[in-house]
């Protein structure tokens, strides 16, 4: 079993590093998950993570890459909703990595 230590809490992760219990998520947890991936969260990261959380709240699923880009373009404009920007922020795998940091389940349609 994987654990992520945040303050005094040990938070359970699955084998791919996603939260087992989605309600464990908090801003501190996101920062700790990001640190484990050598990412320091900037405001640009946070706006994508918040977007992903609203995508999940609305549709109850994690977006694959294309829908993530489409949704980001819709909500934040085309200069942010493109693969270049998202790849740069999330090490080339935005759908998977951003979902992980946002506390969403692993996208099932990322085949």
């Amino acid at each position, binding site marked *: 079993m994987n654990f992520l230590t945040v303050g005094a809490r040990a938070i359970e992760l699955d084998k791919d590093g996603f939260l087992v219990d989605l309600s464990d998520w908090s801003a501190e947890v996101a920062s700790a998950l990001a640190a484990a991936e050598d990412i320091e969260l900037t405001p640009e990261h946070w706006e994508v993570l918040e977007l992903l959380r609203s995508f999940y709240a*609305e549709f109850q699923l994690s977006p694959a*890459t*294309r*829908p993530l880009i489409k*949704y980001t373009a819709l909500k934040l404009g085309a200069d942010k909703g493109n693969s270049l920007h998202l790849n740069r922020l999330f090490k080339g795998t935005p759908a998977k990595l951003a979902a992980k940091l946002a506390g969403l389940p692993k996208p*099932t*349609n*990322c085949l």
Partner: protein
Amino acid sequence: MPKSVLIISRQSPWSGPGAREALDIVLAGGAFDLPIGLLFLDDGVLQLAAGQNAKALQQKDLSANLQALPMFGVEELFYCAESANARGLGKRSLDEAEPLSAEHITALIDRYDQVITL
């Protein structure tokens, strides 16, 4: 040019895996940018009923997932008008889905390269 695929979803939403499987094929196809369409037929139209509550059965929220289809690039969404009328389907979710008569469904099936009925 990849082949176009029409998925015909004709199972009710909560009684078995059919409705979920049909949606998963469509979402996967959409994620790969395949030209894909989805038609709700027979009991499948019941997937479109507004106000369903997945939590009551502790299942994944199929109705919420359906709303994501346009985000996944699936914009060809249809339902059989006759099936909907026969089942008294009133308020619907998924405004994007368009009602079709039997003749229009015949023409729709003709238009796609492949058809999968679940």
